[in-house]
C-alpha cells in the first residue's frame, strides 16, 4: 500500500467516523409489551408525602434529616438514602394550587423508567438493566463497579450514589420489584390517598391520562387510586383541573414508563424539556458506526500493520542486536 492510498483510506475512514452511516443508525427502543409504570397527576397531589414514607419503609432506606431537630425523615431531594420525594413549586404569595402565579404545585421525583434509558446504555458492566417484558429499570449492586457513569448520564438526575460509605451502592427506584413478587405493586401508588400516583400498565395509564386531558376544567369525575388494572381501591371523586395539554413522558427521549400530568409548566416543576430521540440511541449509533463488528478497527489495523512492517525495517528496529 502506498502512503497516498493509505491516506485516502484513512480519509474515507475518517469521513465514515465523522458522518456515521444512516443504515446502521440505531432507532429509539420501543415500549416493552407488558410495560408497567406510574401516572403522576400533579393536580391531584396534596403534598402529604405518604409516598415518601412508604417508599422509605418498603425499601428499607435510612431516614435523612434537613432540620436542626432530627425528629423525622425530611429529605429535600432523592439521594443515596432516598428514592422518592415530592418537591414543591411556589411563586409569589403561593396561595393558589396549580397556579404559576401566586401559586404552588407538587412534583414527584423518582425514576421515570425510560423506554430507552441512558443509564442502561452507559453502564459498562450491565449493572443497570431494563426488563424486556415489564420494562422496569433495575440495578444490580453485585455487578456494579461504582463508576457513576449512570449518575452522570441520566437526564433526570435519578441514579444516586453513596459518597459517605466505604462500600457504596447506586440507589434508584426499581418500582418495588421486590413487592411484585408478593403480588403487590409500587408502595408509593399503594398509599397515595388521592390517586395522584397511580400504578398500572403503561398503555392503560396513557389512556387514563388522555381521558383526564379531555375533561373540561371543573368537570366532576372519578380518579382511580392504587392499581389501575386491578381496581383494588375505591376511586377518588374530584373536579378536573386545568391541565396543560401535555403528557410528560409520552415522547421525551422516546418515552418513559412514568407519565405525568400538570397544570404548571413542567420546566417550572424541574422536569427538563427534552427531544424525542433518545441520547442512548445517539450514543450507540455513533459507537456502532465506529466499532460495529470491529470492521473499521480491523481494516485500520490491517493498514497500520502493513505500513509498520515496511517502516520498522528502515530503522533497524527488528534487526538482531
Amino acid at each position, binding site marked *: 500500500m502506498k*502512503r497516498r492510498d*493509505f491516506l485516502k483510506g484513512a480519509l474515507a475512514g*475518517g469521513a465514515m*467516523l465523522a458522518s456515521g452511516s444512516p443504515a446502521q443508525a440505531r432507532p429509539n427502543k420501543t415500549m416493552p409489551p407488558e410495560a408497567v409504570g406510574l401516572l403522576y397527576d400533579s393536580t391531584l397531589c396534596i403534598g402529604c408525602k405518604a409516598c415518601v414514607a412508604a417508599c422509605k419503609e418498603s425499601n428499607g432506606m435510612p431516614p435523612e434529616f434537613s432540620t436542626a431537630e432530627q425528629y423525622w425523615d425530611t429529605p429535600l431531594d432523592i*439521594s443515596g438514602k432516598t428514592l422518592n420525594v415530592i418537591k414543591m413549586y411556589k411563586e409569589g404569595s403561593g396561595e393558589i394550587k396549580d397556579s404559576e402565579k401566586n401559586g404552588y404545585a407538587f412534583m414527584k421525583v423518582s425514576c421515570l423508567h425510560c423506554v430507552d434509558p441512558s443509564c442502561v446504555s*452507559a*453502564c*459498562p*458492566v*450491565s449493572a443497570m438493566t431494563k426488563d424486556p417484558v415489564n420494562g422496569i429499570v433495575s440495578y444490580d449492586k*453485585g*455487578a*456494579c*463497579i*461504582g*463508576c*457513576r*457513569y449512570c*449518575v*452522570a*448520564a441520566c*437526564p433526570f*438526575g435519578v441514579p*444516586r*450514589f*453513596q459518597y*459517605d*460509605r*466505604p*462500600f*457504596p451502592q447506586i440507589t434508584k427506584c426499581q418500582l418495588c420489584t421486590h413487592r411484585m413478587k408478593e403480588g403487590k405493586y409500587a408502595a408509593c401508588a399503594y398509599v397515595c390517598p388521592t390517586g395522584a400516583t397511580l400504578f398500572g400498565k403503561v398503555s392503560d395509564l396513557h389512556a387514563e391520562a388522555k381521558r383526564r386531558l379531555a375533561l373540561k376544567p371543573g368537570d366532576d369525575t372519578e380518579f382511580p387510586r392504587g392499581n389501575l388494572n386491578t381496581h383494588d381501591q375505591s376511586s377518588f371523586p374530584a373536579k378536573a383541573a386545568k391541565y396543560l395539554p401535555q403528557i410528560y413522558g409520552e415522547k421525551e427521549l422516546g418515552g418513559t414508563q412514568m407519565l405525568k400530568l400538570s397544570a404548571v409548566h413542567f420546566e417550572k416543576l*424541574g422536569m*427538563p424539556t*427534552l427531544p424525542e430521540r433518545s*441520547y*442512548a440511541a*445517539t*450514543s*450507540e449509533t*455513533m*459507537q456502532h458506526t*465506529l466499532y460495529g463488528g470491529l470492521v473499521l*478497527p480491523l481494516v*485500520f*489495523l490491517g493498514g*497500520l*500493520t502493513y*505500513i*509498520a*512492517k515496511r*517502516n*520498522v525495517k*528502515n*530503522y*533497524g*528496529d*527488528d*534487526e*538482531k*542486536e
Partner: protein
Amino acid sequence: MSATHNHPAPAPLGGPLVTPVTITLAILVAIAFVILGIRFVLGIGAVTNVSDGYPFGIWIAYDVVIGSAFACGGYSLALLVYIFNKGEYHPMVRPALLASMFGYTLAGASVIFDLGRYWNTWHIFWPGYAQVNSVMFEVAVCITAYIVVMMIEFSPAFLEKFGFKDIHKKLNKVLFLIIALGVLLPSMHQSSLGSLIVVFGNQIHPLWQTIMLPLLFLMTAVMIGFAIVIFESCLSSSGFKRPLELHLLTGLSRLMTGLLAAYLVVRVGDLAVRGALGFMFEPSIEAFMFWVEMGLFAAPLVLLWQPAARQKPARLFVAAFCLLFAGFFLRINAFLVGYETGAGWHYFPAVPEIMVSVGLIALEILGYIVLVRYLPILPKEEQI
C-alpha cells in the same frame, strides 16, 4: 527499539537518585497515598467534592481524560515514525514511550480510586458483565490493552539491561504488529474519551456537545502528543543539562501547527453547522471558558506561524505549553464547566482531591527521572 545505524544508541544517564527534587516529589506522592487511605476507609465524599450533580470530578476529568491525553507523546511519535515514515524522529520514540507508559499506567490505575465498588472492576472485561454498547466499556478495554502494548513496546529497554537476548529477538519479529496496535488503540480510546459525554445529551452545553466530539478529542490528543514531546524535551534538556534536539522539535512544531489549523477549522465549522456559534457571545461562564480554551488553541498557531519562529526554543516551549493548556481546557470545559445537571449543583475540587492528582503527577515525574538514570532510554550524547 534499539540502536540504529544513523542515531546514537540509548544509554542510561546515571547520576544521583536522591536529590532535593526527587525528595520533594516523594513527599507529594506520600501525601496522596495518605489521602487515598482516608478515601478507602470513609468513602469518596470524605476527600472529594464530587456529588450526584457532579459525579465525575477531577479524578476522572484530569487524572484519566487529561492524564491519558498528556501521555500521548508515544502515540504521536509512533504514528509519525512508523506510519508516516519520518525516521529522523526515531531517537525521540523511546523517551516519549516511557513518559506515555507511565502516564497511561497511572491514568488507568487511578481509575480504581474513583470507582466506588472497585473490587468489581474485573467485570468490565468479563463476558456476561461487559456491556459493549457502553462507551466506558470501550475506553476501559482499549486503555488497558494499550498499557499492555506499551509495556511490550518498551520491554527492549529492560531486556537490554538484563540481557535476555532470545526474548528480545522473538519480540522483534512481531514488533510491527505491536507497533500497529500501539497506533490503533490510542486512536480508538482517545476519540472515545470524547464520545463518553455524547450520551449526557443536553446536560452538556452546546459549545461542547456534538457528535464530532470523538474527532475533536482525537485531533487534540495527537497535537498534545507533539506538544508534550516538545515540552518534555525542553525540560529534560535543561534538567539533565543535555543539548536540545532543536532540529527535531522544529519539525514537530511544523506538523503540530498544521494539525492545529485543521482542528480549528473543524471546531469552528462544527459550531457553525450546529448553529451554536451564538452561545460564545452570551454573558456566561461557559462562553468565557470557551474563549479561554480557543485563545489557548489560537496562541500556538500565532506563535509558530512563521517558519523562523519554530527555530526559537523559548517560543517552541511557550507554544507547546499553550497547546497543553488548550487541550486541558477543552477536556475540563466539556466534562465539568459545560456539564449542568440541574439547578443547585456546584463543583470545585477539594484540596485533598487536588493533592491526589498532584501526587500522581509527582509519581510520574519521579518514575521518569529514576528510569532514565537507570535504563537505556535517552540517546547517548556524542561528546561523551
